[in-house]
């Protein structure tokens, strides 16, 4: 407090508080970064080995291209340990003969994770298709057609509430709605059908879709629907009102205006939010637990046993069977990455071998989600350049 310097400042306690607050805020931010980096480092450190092998070219893709299986761990009397598949375990045991000291089997932890990857991809495909269609319809209605008022407030409240519903509740809803009651067209309605509407040529039976990709995908769609609606509506609102007025002033109808002068400029944002929705859908476990996922399945969804075609079957029969195979994937239950991770982590006895498979899956899963997020960022930057106003 020098008399010669009027700007020296004299409120020490305010200054101390300023410094303390700045450090508190700064440390908070650093802590968040630290936790993120720690998670990534830990998972990479533990999970990366699942994708590596000691000899050239060091990358082991079998983890990505094989179906999960039971892992056999064989130790001989010299203490050499071999990890192998059930088939090879037999050969090795024969070779070792009396040298065999011990054999351990760990379910689910062997082979790769192709099944779960394919399953997750199918679930995401169905859920995003459904959620995008419903979500964009809803967002367009809310943003472009509906008048402000009680009804709109109610719809918005409903969407907000939907976003707050715990995912396990969605799982139970999916079980009740899609697995057990959703309608199917069938000539022979099941006994468990809630009710059956005869259509003459066939029946509309409310007997559910069983646990399958379709049930799981629809359930997941409702999990990500609030995100997609909210984000799409924001993107539509971000399109200048002037575009709408100008378009209407040039004699366009509402729909022409939306189709030509609103949607194209909202699409980049809608796509971005969709990709984030994909990441969310890919990561949910609870909604698919009762609706689509299996802990173990030794076949890919299209490897279904269909009756063999007669040798003289024509082109058409082959073609028909291929279509049947393609559509069939949606009515199969599948393995999925998050559920596979859950199985490895919580359903089997823990040891170093299950841990490697578990961290390997988590690592692959994390890479998938990260690349989806990266795609969304790239898409946003790229499309923004194209559509700016």
């Amino acid at each position, binding site marked *: 407090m020098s008399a010669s310097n009027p700007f020296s400042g004299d409120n020490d306690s305010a200054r101390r508080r300023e410094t303390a607050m700045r450090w508190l805020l700064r440390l908070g931010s650093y802590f968040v970064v630290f936790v993120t980096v720690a998670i990534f480092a830990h998972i990479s450190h533990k999970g990366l080995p699942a994708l590596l092998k000691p000899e050239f070219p060091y990358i082991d893709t079998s983890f990505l291209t094989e179906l999960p299986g039971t892992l056999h761990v064989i130790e001989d009397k010299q203490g050499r340990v071999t990890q192998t598949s059930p088939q090879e375990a037999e050969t090795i045991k024969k070779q070792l003969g009396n040298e065999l000291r011990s054999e351990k089997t760990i379910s689910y932890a062997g082979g790769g994770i192709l099944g779960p990857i394919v399953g997750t991809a199918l679930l995401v495909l169905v859920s995003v298709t459904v959620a995008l269609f419903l979500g964009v319809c809803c967002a367009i209605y809310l943003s472009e057609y509906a*008048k*402000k008022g009680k009804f709109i407030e109610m719809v918005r409240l409903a969407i907000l509430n939907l976003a707050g519903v715990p995912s396990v509740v969605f799982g139970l809803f999916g079980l009740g709605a899609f697995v057990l009651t959703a309608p199917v067209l069938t000539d022979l309605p099941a006994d468990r059908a809630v009710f059956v509407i005869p259509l003459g040529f066939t029946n509309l039976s409310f007997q559910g879709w069983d646990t399958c990709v379709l049930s799981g995908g629809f359930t997941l769609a409702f999990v990500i629907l609030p995100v997609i609606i909210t984000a799409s509506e924001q993107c539509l609102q971000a399109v*200048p009102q*002037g*575009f*709408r*007025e*100008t*378009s*209407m*002033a*040039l*004699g*366009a*109808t509402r729909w*022409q205006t939306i189709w*030509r*002068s609103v949607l194209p*400029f909202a699409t980049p944002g809608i796509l971005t939010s969709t990709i984030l929705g994909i990441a969310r859908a890919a990561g949910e476990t609870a909604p698919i637990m009762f609706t689509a996922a299996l802990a173990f399945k030794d076949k890919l969804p299209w490897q279904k046993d269909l009756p063999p075609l007669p040798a003289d079957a024509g082109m058409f029969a082959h073609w028909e069977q291929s279509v049947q195979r393609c559509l069939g994937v949606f009515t199969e239950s599948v393995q999925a990455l998050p559920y596979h991770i859950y199985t490895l982590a919580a359903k089997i006895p823990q040891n170093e071998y299950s841990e490697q498979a578990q961290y390997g899956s988590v690592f692959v899963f994390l890479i998938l989600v990260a690349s989806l997020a990266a795609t969304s960022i790239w898409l946003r930057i790229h499309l923004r350049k194209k*559509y*700016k*106003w």
Partner: protein
Amino acid sequence: MPTDSPSATPHPIISVERFNYAYGDHQVLFDVDLPIRSEDVTAFIGPSGCGKSTLLRSINRINDLVDSARVVSGTIKVDGVDLYSPEVDPIALRRQIGMVFQKYNPFPRSIFENAVYGLRVAGITDKAELMDAAERSLKAAALWEEVKDRLQELATGLSGGQQQRLCIARAIALQPRILLMDEPCAALDPIATAKIEELILSLRGSYTFVIVTHNMEQAKRIADRTTFFYKGKVIETGDTLDLFTKPGNKLTEDYVTGRLV
């Protein structure tokens, strides 16, 4: 109380009759009576919030897009047809009454697509017909020479004045009879403004212009007739020269001499 000079209503193409208009419970136009003559340039002047833009936007019913906007009573007739009667389709109406907005806002599409937007939404797909229409309207908007070699480029790359002329071209591509302009030069520099004014004067006679402007000098330069609005009412309407040189109302006089804000 509108004070009308004797020559006011030989052929009113638009006639506003005891028109009351509100946003929700907030009334913004009170008993507006206004004949607008065919082929004239009519300017609406008045301080901000006086209702001149609302009236303009009611003529092509673009204000229908505002949720709370409603006609309280009265009519706007074009050629004797009440624009707010149930038989009138606002879409068809807007094809015949063009509008140019304050902020030039071409769509972020090519210059060509902007010029033919109205024709496309009207269902015209013939390439040659669209090209003809684009050329005709761009020429009329005095923009053809500047853009004829880059019709496929983004319209948003043009200068502000060019963009606004493109918006005018876009509106006249539909060959409307009436062109409404809501402060068409408010976002432009003086040179671009001069070009737009020149354009309006060159198109005068081909269309009936109704122009909202804050710029009284502009009204003097381009308008045949001027209407002064104050607090939702038409205070005075008359030939532009008369209104500015010998205003019949104290409020008009205060406004045109800059004493009323």
